[in-house]
């Protein structure tokens, strides 16, 4: 059996808007059937990278293959086999759900169009709302419509740009169950998100900052590679402890979580020394904990100040 080609395999993508380099030498590989998370602060270039991958923007440099097609030459073929869900809702608000889906079915030359539309509607539980205008839908339902529309033509690769922003937790859970079900069937997914719990549901994650990909791998790999130590302080004196730890040697992050204080740092020795001393002085209990993905991301974001542009 030969090794299947990755669904996305791009190297050295560069995109500039004017003088500003928004995507800088990004190389990204996503294996078939994989759910790959795409994370990074606002304005770091996630949307731009996704648009480059689906041919909506022309890269200033870089090459690659998407679904085995050349990124630069076969944009038309890539479009036919990719489903792209935009960050901003971009279906017609003055068309009903069913009309929007019929439109999409027509553009992908699905036949018979009505059968595809009806199946998609019932799969996503949209049948009863099919005559409602898309513009009158709530955020969660708009999201569902957008997802329905971009999987109707059975794409091989799904590009989802913050698909669950502003969606309630239950709908979010259902959405992810759906994504996992699709991936089981062999669909490849690249999904951008700001939610940690969603990142943890991905097979792999990629972290981009100021246009550069600075970390990727499985969640545990990314956490391990960050080489962070985390200590937890408990007790009544944590407010005082937080004050004292601010700026102490080895301490990079201090975050109160209810009755506990998380202290994170890169230099394990210095960190342990500072925390132990403060724990003694404030009579709080100190214990070591697993570093969370969130801690890693906060570290990555503060690591390059001004990550938000």
């Amino acid at each position, binding site marked *: 059996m030969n090794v299947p080609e990755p669904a996305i395999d791009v190297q050295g993508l560069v995109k500039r808007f004017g003088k500003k380099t928004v995507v800088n030498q990004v190389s990204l590989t996503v294996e078939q059937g994989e759910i790959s998370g795409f994370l990074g602060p606002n304005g770091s270039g996630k949307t731009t990278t996704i648009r480059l991958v689906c041919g909506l923007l022309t890269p200033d440099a870089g090459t690659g293959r998407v679904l085995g097609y050349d990124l630069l030459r076969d944009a038309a073929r890539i479009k036919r086999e990719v489903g792209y869900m*935009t960050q901003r809702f971009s*279906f017609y608000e003055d*068309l009903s759900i069913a*009309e929007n889906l019929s*439109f999409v079915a*027509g553009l992908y030359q699905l036949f018979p169009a009505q059968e595809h539309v009806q199946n998609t509607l019932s799969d996503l539980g949209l049948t009863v709302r099919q005559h409602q205008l898309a513009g009158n839908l709530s955020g969660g339902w708009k999201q569902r419509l957008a997802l329905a529309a971009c999987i109707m033509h059975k794409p091989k690769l799904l590009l989802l740009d913050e698909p669950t922003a502003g969606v309630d937790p239950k709908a979010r859970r259902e959405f992810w169950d759906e994504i996992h079900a699709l991936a089981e069937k062999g669909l490849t997914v690249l999904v951008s998100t700001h939610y940690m719990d969603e990142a943890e549901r991905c097979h792999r994650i990629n972290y981009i900052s100021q246009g550069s990909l600075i970390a990727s791998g499985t969640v545990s790999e990314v956490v391990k590679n960050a080489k962070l130590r985390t200590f937890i302080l408990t007790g009544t004196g944590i407010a005082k402890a937080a004050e004292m730890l601010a700026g102490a040697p080895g301490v990079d992050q201090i975050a109160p979580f209810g009755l506990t204080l998380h202290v994170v740092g890169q230099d394990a020795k210095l960190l342990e020394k500072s925390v132990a001393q403060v724990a003694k002085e404030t009579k709080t209990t100190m214990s070591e904990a697993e570093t969370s993905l969130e801690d890693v991301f906060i570290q990555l974001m503060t690591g390059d100040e001004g990550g938000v542009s």
Partner: protein
Amino acid sequence: MRHFFSLRRLYALLVKEAIQMRRDRITFAMMLGVPLMQLVLFGFAINSDPKELPAALVAPTQDRYTRAIVTALELTGYYRFNYVTASAQEAENLIAQGVVSFVVTIPSDFGRRVERGERPQLLIEADATDPAVASGAISTLGTVAANALLHERGAEAEAAERARSQLEVVVHRRYNPEGITQYNIVPGLLGVILQMTMVMMTSMALTRETERGTMENLLAMPVTPLEIMLGKVLPYLVVGAVQVAVVLTAAKLLFNVPFVGTLSLILLGVFVFVLSLVLLGYTISTLSRTQMQAMQLTFFFFLPSLLLSGFMFPYRGMPGWAQVLGEFFPLTHFLRMIRGVMLKGANFETVQAPLAALLLFVLAYAALALLRFRRTLD
């Protein structure tokens, strides 16, 4: 082939446009209501035979002949003598300022000449800045004045008859010696109205998608520039057809414009013209990024096309360079064609040239639009 052009995709685009058009009630109503309104408004405003126009009378002697003529002129309904003066200079000022549209001068020897059976003279100066305004008033003049004299002389009918045949009305059309007849204007209005609505509507076609954010989705789907263009442009051909029907019917019923030529030739010409307009609008749409820009480009195009096409001013009266510029507007060629066919009964051979020019615009705009279409969001 399936990948470059697909009827199924085009059909999907057309259905979507049709639904959107139908849902956008106000725009839809405007597309049909505005042309009718404009035709009625401009048609009457520009074409009607204006009455009660202000006039000045220069009459050094107030004899009965003078009074008879003034009364007769006023009875036609065209003149309203607001100013009676003996000074030609004052009258000159009045017409120059536009306070009056006519100056009627009855020379001091008028009465004497009538009585002697000599050749009496009447001078009418008309402000012909807008020549259509003055034409009705002037055309009735000769007979009215002569009849008035006839009446006045009564018994001495013989002499009066002589005077009548000899009465000389001297007409000076001032400021614009050219005359445009009103029939000229309604077919022109058809062109202007079509140009206005068709170009305006289609110039928003793509910018609307961009501004609503739906362009990103559209471009991510496998649809080709040609399909998008046809999908945007064809629905407006239908709108154009309805507008043409409305305007032509109204032209016949309200203004009684003669349809001398064959209807099929008129319709062929209108079809090619509308096609060039929607493609022009679409081209503008590919050139602009926002609806505001599209609007500005559209207006940037409108004014010169109105001025240089021969709609406002006689084409042949313009300087050579302006005529050359005028050739670049579809409206110019359409006016030539439609006036030729509707009013002069021109046949296909006669209007071949403007038709060919319009076809050339169709091809040129379509090519430009396809070339300029941005397949990406760059």
